[in-house]
């Protein structure tokens, strides 16, 4: 498909999947004529009509709940939640229905569905357009959680999500929606969940991140390179399942790790990564794993720059792990 941004790749991938499988339907607020407020469903309504691209009432509970019922009946719904922050009015449907349906019915019913949502800060949206609620999702057994950071990975992961037999929360780095343009292959390809992407090889420190903060993490790695410090950079790509093997292997070899995520620090996903590293490869660690995260405040409108883990905070953490 040539050079494309993340948001263009989403629309293109949805189109390919709808063409491939007529069970795939889209539902959400403004996904129809408007093509989504970020244009992630652009032109699909015109192409597939109102039975496959469904503009819903303004109700996240209706969107997620109806997607569950559609999935139970054999469709493959892709629901859009306009901002990850608006998952909460539909949260019960996600947690009590979608996530638990297979388990509570003993495998009789299941909800193969995708819930797409732009997440993260840095767009001057205040706390109700900027949050990173991924911890809520990984803490809910029954959900898979994916968070790509590039157009290439977006296509492969979204295809896997749509074809997966379980509910998948597909988080999208909204501040990178149009920030990166890269060559996205034309062919049909899927990226397996739970397989991290080694973005840089290095020997002095490992930087682990996912989603929007991959951009800042790579900037930090560039800056370290200029200082003669070689950083290995891992993009997790999916949080549940997450690629423990790759992370443990890299960190065991290098001995020092910085974990970057813009969600609040308390029970941040990276706290799980840190706990796993200390439980499983303590002997190989030369320094404690250090997290660089958002703060435990509501997302602060006026302090985007200070709140988000930018390159400077990442570099400071690297200095700390190197000092041991």
């Amino acid at each position, binding site marked *: 498909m040539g050079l494309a941004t993340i948001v263009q790749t989403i629309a293109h991938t949805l189109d390919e999947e709808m063409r491939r499988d007529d069970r795939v339907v889209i539902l959400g607020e403004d996904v129809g004529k408007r093509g989504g407020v970020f244009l992630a469903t652009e032109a699909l309504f015109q192409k597939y009509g109102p039975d*496959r691209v469904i503009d819903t009432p303004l*109700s996240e*509970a209706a969107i997620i709940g109806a997607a569950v019922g*559609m999935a139970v009946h054999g469709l493959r719904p892709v629901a859009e939640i306009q901002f990850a922050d608006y998952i909460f009015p539909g949260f019960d449907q996600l947690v*009590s229905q979608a996530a638990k349906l297979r*388990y509570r019915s*003993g495998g*009789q019913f299941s909800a193969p569905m995708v819930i797409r949502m732009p997440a993260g800060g840095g767009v001057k949206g205040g706390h109700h357009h900027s949050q990173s609620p991924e911890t809520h999702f990984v803490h809910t057994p029954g959900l898979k959680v994916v968070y790509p950071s590039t157009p290439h990975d977006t296509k492969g992961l979204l295809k896997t999500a749509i074809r997966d*037999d379980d509910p998948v929360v597909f988080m999208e780095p909204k501040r990178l929606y149009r920030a990166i343009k890269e060559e996205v292959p034309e062919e049909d390809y899927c990226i397996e969940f739970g397989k991290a992407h080694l973005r840089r090889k290095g020997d002095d420190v490992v930087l682990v991140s996912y989603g929007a903060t991959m951009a800042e993490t790579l900037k930090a790695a560039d800056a370290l390179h200029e200082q003669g410090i070689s950083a290995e950079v891992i993009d997790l790509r999916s949080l549940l399942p997450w690629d*423990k093997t790759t992370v443990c292997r890299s960190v065991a070899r290098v001995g020092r790790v910085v974990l970057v995520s813009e969600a609040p620090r308390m029970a941040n996903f990276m706290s799980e990564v840190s706990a796993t590293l200390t439980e499983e490869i303590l002997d190989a660690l030369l320094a404690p794993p250090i997290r660089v995260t958002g703060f435990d405040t509501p997302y602060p409108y006026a302090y985007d720059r200070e709140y988000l883990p930018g390159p400077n905070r990442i570099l400071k953490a690297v200095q700390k792990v190197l000092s041991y």
Partner: protein
Amino acid sequence: MIKDSQLFQPFSEKPIRLMGDAGEWLGSFELNLDSDTLLKFYRDMLRARLFDERLLLLHRRGQVSFVAPSAGHEAAQVAVAAALKPKKDWVFPYYREPGLLLALGVPAVELFGQAMATRADPNRGRQMPAHPGSRDFNVFTVASVIASHLPPAVGTAISMKVRNTGEVVVASFGDGATSEGDFHAGLNFAGVQGAPIVFVCQNNRYAISVEYHKQTAAETIASKAEAYGLPGYLVDGMDVLACFFVMREAVARARQGFGPSLVEMQVYRLGPHSSADDDTRYRPVEEVETWKTRDPLARMHRFLAHRGLWSREEDLALRTEIEREFRQAVEDAQRAGAVPLEWMFEDVFAELPDHLREQRRDLL
């Protein structure tokens, strides 16, 4: 949206009734049901009543941890089942509906297995009692979170509509459920889509202890349909014939593409909310006694006897037969055995992921 039906008017002031207290026919049209159908209504209602009694016995013996008695609701539940095509149409029930599931044909052994969490439960012992479900009969597995099944029910109905399958959904719930946001989300979306679904509220006047007038200032639940552009029917829910005829029309309309309806069936919970409840703390005994005189089974019994279709001897014989069936079903459910510990980790996902494989290995 068509808001009228052939036989019944929506938004009536008084509940639609077809059977008087003495069991007399009140309909303005000729009763065109054969005696087998009428007897099946009674049989299904009696099975529901005796199923509950068997569960309460098991509860007293410590073999079941929880019971949500449905006595008083039988007519409503049996009528819903009778209006549907079993295994073709879908039902999204709430937790107090053994009568609906039994009448649809769900085997009693599965329901007892569910209540005792044995291998006889197709839901593999994953939930507390009163939370059954059956893929074979298109019965969506019950969730405790009140009204949370309504948006999924609407999604299934939308899927039926866009694929033109000719199927219908019935979603049922109590009066308390109408205060939840999911009730609004579900009825609103169903109305917009004209989805083939019938919402059935079994209004028993109490959400555990909270009485109807503390739940809503609306005179009736049925009246809430107006705001969603749906017809709302107020029905005597202890009159199996009224429930059946109203449901039959609502289901037919949904199947023909004329969209959803809301049917309020006014019932009364003759027992406590559950085996853990003491209903004398919040409702007068006299009130319960008054409602007992309207018992849906007794009324149907009178109706049948009136027409020479049923005798005391036949009634005793039927009770004996059902009790024998249920004793056997309980025995079969117990003999199926406890669910094995390995099952704890299954069905979280379609395939067992590595982290659960590790956790299982650590436990076993």
